């Protein structure tokens, strides 16, 4: 038992392999690039909005379609059902996310230079947690928007949960949410962290033995 722990510790203390470091570097670049790209698109399509109304969520802002006009339009439409106006200022995440990604990028870069397997595990696990938390928080925000409807609204509709991924019909609209390039970059970062990890520990068993 003890030998196992020792061997595990030894494995975790191993420095990263050179290809592993390169993979990680690519991952960090993708992470930073991803932070500047849209993460998620929410779009609404109806017969009278054939071209669709879109909101693109970035790590740091909401970009509405039609030169920003779609946000005002969505809010105008939402007032009929008593949904509170969607405002960028309400998204605390957008203040935290760029900072968090910066931290991940810095830890990633440190691992590229002086990294050990341990730091990769930390990076991967905490990023996984961070990703899951962000997605959860995003879902909760959607839930809140769809459920905190004003009782004085002109139109009463059953509180609803906008889909996080996929499509659904809400009144005359088909609402679709799909991940965009930013999210794929984040995912690629995680994959590259794993790849770097795998590259750095493969063959380790033989050595240990």
């Amino acid at each position, binding site marked *: 038992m003890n030998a196992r722990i020792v061997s595990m510790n030894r494995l975790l203390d191993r420095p990263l392999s050179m290809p592993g470091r390169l993979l990680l570097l690519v991952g960090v670049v993708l992470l930073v690039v991803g932070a500047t790209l849209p993460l998620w698109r929410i779009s609404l399509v109806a017969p009278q909005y054939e071209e669709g109304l879109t909101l693109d969520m970035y790590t740091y802002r909401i970009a509405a379609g039609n030169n920003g*006009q779609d946000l*005002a*339009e969505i809010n*105008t439409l939402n007032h*009929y059902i008593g949904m509170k106006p969607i405002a960028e200022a309400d998204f605390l995440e957008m203040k935290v996310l760029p900072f968090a990604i910066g931290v991940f990028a810095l830890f990633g870069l440190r691992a590229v230079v002086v990294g050990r397997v341990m730091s990769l595990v930390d990076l991967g696990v905490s990023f996984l947690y961070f990703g899951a938390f962000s997605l959860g928080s995003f879902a909760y925000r959607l839930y809140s928007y769809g459920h905190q409807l004003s009782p004085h609204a*002109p*139109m009463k509709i059953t509180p609803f949960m906008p889909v996080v991924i996929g499509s659904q019909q809400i009144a005359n609209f088909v609402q679709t949410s799909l991940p965009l390039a930013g999210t794929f970059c984040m995912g690629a970062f995680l994959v590259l962290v794993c790849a770097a990890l795998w590259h750095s520990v493969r063959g380790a068993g033989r050595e240990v033995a």
Partner: protein
Amino acid sequence: MSTRHHLVAGSALALALAATAGCNPPGSSKATQGDASVASQSYVAPGAKDEYYLFYSGGHSGQVYVAGLPSMRHISTIPVFAPYPATGYGFDEESKAMMGRFTWGDVHHPGLSQTGGKYDGRWLFVNDNANNRIARVDLRDFKTRQILGPIPNSSGNHGSSFVTENSEYVLVATRFSVPLPKGRYADPANYQTEFNGMVSGIRVDPKTGEMSVGWQVLTPPFNWDLGSTGKGPSSGWAFWTSYNSEMAHETLEATSTQGERDYAAIVNWRAAEQAVKDGKATMMDGVPVIDPAKVPGVLYFLAVPKSPHGIDTDPSGRWIAASGKLQPVTSVFDFEKIQKAIASKTFEGEVRGIPVIKHDAVIEGEVPVGLGPLHTQYDGKGNAYTSLYVESAVAKWSLPPWNDAQKKDLNSIVLDKIPVQFNIGHLVIGGSDTKEPYGKYLVAMNKLSKGRHVSVGPSQPESSQLIDISGKKMQMLYEAYTEPEPHFAQILKADAIAPIEVYPKAENTNPNAVWDASQAGITRSGNKVEVKMVAIRSRFIPDKIEVKAGDEVTIHVTNVEQTTDMIHGLGIIEHDMNVVIDPGETKTAKFVAGKPGVYAFYCTNFCSALHQEMQGYLAVKP
């Protein structure tokens, strides 16, 4: 049903028609070309878009109408000289000020702005024959942006709106000569000595399109008719026909139609412009006026047969076709010969000091097109199309150069003729007045429709017919009943412009605009009440306005929407008020609160599911 069945049914119908046709007197053409197979050529499916815009004048309705080609569907009305409650035109202070003291105009000849002899898609100019005005429609938003006039020293702005190659000027000529300056009395019995006509250059600001009267050229009291501007070799020149060169003043039907010829004006507008710069003009009613007898080189006359109407320069700028409506020919003049004749002073006399160019020296030929020729349009492929009013037809013929055999028998250059229903006036081919016509469709604008449609009582609509001119033979495709009364039209390729669909908030510089409920409100000073109002789905803010009887009420209403097609209207019950506000626009309504009472105001332009609830009250206290 299969195609074959259609064909069988179609030919059965054709046989039935042929059978009944036997009962009609010879020449009867009640039913024409009952061939459904051409329908697909003008069919534009629901949701599909037309290839061209057709901007046609609405005559004494005072408006310009927009249809699509080839569908001929009426798409929009652009109010110009008459109020139009549908868009609130003529109710808000801005458009009221633009219309001035008139509530109608007589729109005849729309002209698209040009750059380098081609449509640039910026503006559409239209004339008002009745009140001597000219208007500019901005094709960015399809709105009338300026009405200039009444133009000084010009009466009956019919010979307009002819745009020069780079929209330097819109050229205008007087139809009805009057004593000048306007406002002066003279006995019409002294018509020849006291009355005058005028040709005007309306200068167009190249950036803003803002029009102003640049210069005028005084003419004898002929009745100036249609015109066109030159290009290529005839660049810098313009041409008008006239009737009544007899200078008669009553019973013109007879007194002005005795002469075999009337005069066309050959105007060197660049020379006119230069003469004004050189100080050779005298001011009349605030406008520099050139007396062409004293400033040679600006104006020449050219005799054309008989009671001419249209005079149209071809896309090359060399050939000028003038049609005498009382003679069955179209006269083709060669501008190169005109220039030579001017240079060598080949004149056949003069009228009031204006040289008359020798007709025989400049005529290329008289084309026997048919009865009652009026206007000629060009397809850019060497063909001309002349409308025949009396004959109710369009004749297609070849432009020069002609070979010897053709010259010998000009009948041989008349290639095709197609009947129209009925009595065609103007006809239009896209870009005929430019260097590069579109040459695909021709629209015949007929003066009568005489029962080709379900009856609508004594006031029958005008018919407009779409003719395919892409092939050797002209082919009738479709007919539509256009708003009264189409005279001339312009055809513009749909993709030549990209109109805006909302007024961007950033561009709204109206000092009375309010964009937020918190800025809206009512202020009073003395008996003047000023309201700054927001219109948004589905409310007016404020929705209660309290005033006292006799108060002067001004409402500035801003439509804060920035969404396509989200238009609001402000109609006030029993106050003759309906302003319609496009997204991002601010408009001002002004009225005096009259009878005490409570009057609802409401949104007149359907906006949303809760449009009906978009209302408020104007409470007028005794």
